[in-house]
């Protein structure tokens, strides 16, 4: 508790590292009673009107500290439940098992899992528990972070920005009546067509740790940072927004690759401590780069939707769109963080 206290005093609006997640959940429950309800021990955020009979249930989850992801995406047209773990730590199987039960409307449940060893294993155990109780559960794993070298022999790429877009698009499809297999297939398509890369200007402090996750000099940035402050591809000198945007965007474009004539959803995300004015500066550079490449931005999202506590930085996600994904991106959504058409 000693260092915990120091942490609290370390410039965060929290009461204690131990209470932060529950206090925030209580705040969400109070602010969004029209959209969701919150259960504690195990901690689960559940869409108010769940389970929806005959609708495929969407369950996501991950460590806390990435808000609004995932709780801010619970509601009509997106998630049925979100399972928040401790800060930067994947949630536990009992949370996902409870969420699965709570949202199962008889059409089965999709588990949306970001590709981290911990998330995978905890969701796996949850799926085993849920299936033991007779639920139909399909997992889909997001792994869109191009910063990580992929390989059969490693844990593979991290799931980052595409997760947000996938939850929206697949949520629209589930609302429209897609069955579990079609929902799963669409989810895999979205993941397959999306790529992301992020960078950090500053570190962030996990309250329970009490000190910054990593040290970084005043004139340095981390390219390819993970959303938990995992070190990235390289540590370089500070660059201009245009240079940074070009490095991230070109790496993302080359990886899929995105081609001249492609229509994309461009998502410029803030890491939590970066103000909106800077995100628009970055979006401007991304837009310029893509039009130079002949890639058409037909949809966009600019804001802090998948964050790393108070880390300053940005990530860029591109998703290649087609008629189906565009339709479900545009479909009505009503959550705390994303809302349109209703």
């Amino acid at each position, binding site marked *: 508790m000693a*260092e915990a206290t120091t942490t609290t005093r370390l410039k965060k609006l929290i009461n204690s590292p131990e209470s932060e997640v529950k206090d925030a959940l209580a705040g969400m429950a109070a602010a969004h009673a029209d959209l969701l309800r919150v259960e504690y021990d*195990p901690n689960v955020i559940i869409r108010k009107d769940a389970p929806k009979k005959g609708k495929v249930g969407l369950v996501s989850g991950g*460590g806390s500290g990435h808000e609004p992801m995932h709780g801010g995406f619970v509601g009509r047209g997106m998630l049925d439940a979100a399972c928040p*773990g*401790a*800060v*930067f*730590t*994947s*949630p*536990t*199987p*009992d949370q996902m098992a409870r969420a699965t039960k709570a949202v199962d409307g008889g059409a089965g449940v999709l588990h949306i899992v970001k590709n*981290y*060893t*911990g998330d995978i*294993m*905890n969701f*796996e*155990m949850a799926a085993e528990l849920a299936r033991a109780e007779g639920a139909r559960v399909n997992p889909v794993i997001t792994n869109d972070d191009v*910063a*990580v*070298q992929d390989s059969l*022999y*490693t*844990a593979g790429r*991290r799931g980052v920005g595409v997760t947000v877009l996938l939850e929206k698009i697949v949520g629209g499809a589930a609302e429209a009546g897609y069955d579990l297999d079609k929902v799963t297939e669409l989810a895999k398509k979205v993941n397959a067509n999306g790529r992301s890369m992020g960078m950090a200007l500053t570190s962030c402090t*996990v309250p*329970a*740790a009490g000190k910054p*996750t*990593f040290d970084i000099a005043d004139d340095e940035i981390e390219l390819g940072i*993970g959303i*938990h*402050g*995992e*070190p990235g591809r390289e540590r370089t000198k500070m660059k201009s927004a245009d240079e940074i945007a070009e490095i991230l965007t070109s790496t993302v474009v080359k990886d899929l690759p995105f081609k001249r004539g492609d229509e994309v959803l461009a998502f410029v995300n803030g890491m939590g401590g970066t103000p909106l004015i800077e995100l628009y500066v970055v979006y401007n550079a991304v837009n310029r780069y893509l039009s130079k490449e002949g890639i058409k931005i037909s949809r966009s999202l600019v804001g802090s939707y998948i964050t790393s506590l108070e880390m300053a930085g940005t990530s860029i996600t591109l998703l290649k769109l087609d008629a189906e994904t565009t339709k479900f991106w545009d479909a009505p959504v009503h959550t705390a963080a994303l809302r349109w058409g209703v």
Partner: protein
Amino acid sequence: MTVSTAQLASWLERYAAVIAEHKQYLTGLDAAIGDGDHGINMDRGFQAVIAKMGPVRDKDAGTLLKTTGMALVSTVGGASGPLYGTFFLRAGTALDGKIEVADKELVDALEAGLKGVIDRGKANLKDKTMVDALTPALERARARLGEGASIADALSAAAEAAESGMKATIPLKALKGRASYLGERSVGHQDPGATSTFFMLRSLHEAVAEIPQGARTTTG
């Protein structure tokens, strides 16, 4: 010779204390190649274990270790939650109903736990994980028992082997877990999970050998 449930309970208590003591150290190791929460995760988990142990400490070894596993699974999260959780669940299952545990039964149970860790995490030796500490430790323990050593001596050798296994993770490039995202940059750092696993085996030896608590000068 045998090991009593009471000694196993003492193992868990000692391990919980060591984790609490080395929370920052483990977290620091994880910050270097992971996300800086391993000590926090393990401490949260073993505080829960201590809290839940009361009612079952006089029950059989299986119940004690399964309760431990359940507590870890439902409080730790991350990679270490399912892994340590599965370790204790499987070991506990192997000791169902036993109040006194024969030496070989104990090593067999730990072996079952290791198998659970590998089933869950799919790690191979030299992937730079806790498996690199646990595997040689159990081999040594089994070997020493075969040579007729006492369970205390066998576990002492196991702890030593775990420590070398832990140190041997330093030059490795991580192929599993968060550290694998670093590729080459993971080389030169000691794996946090292998480190907590070494602590686990050292605590087991100290509990079984009934070394007065705090006698040892802590490493790390």
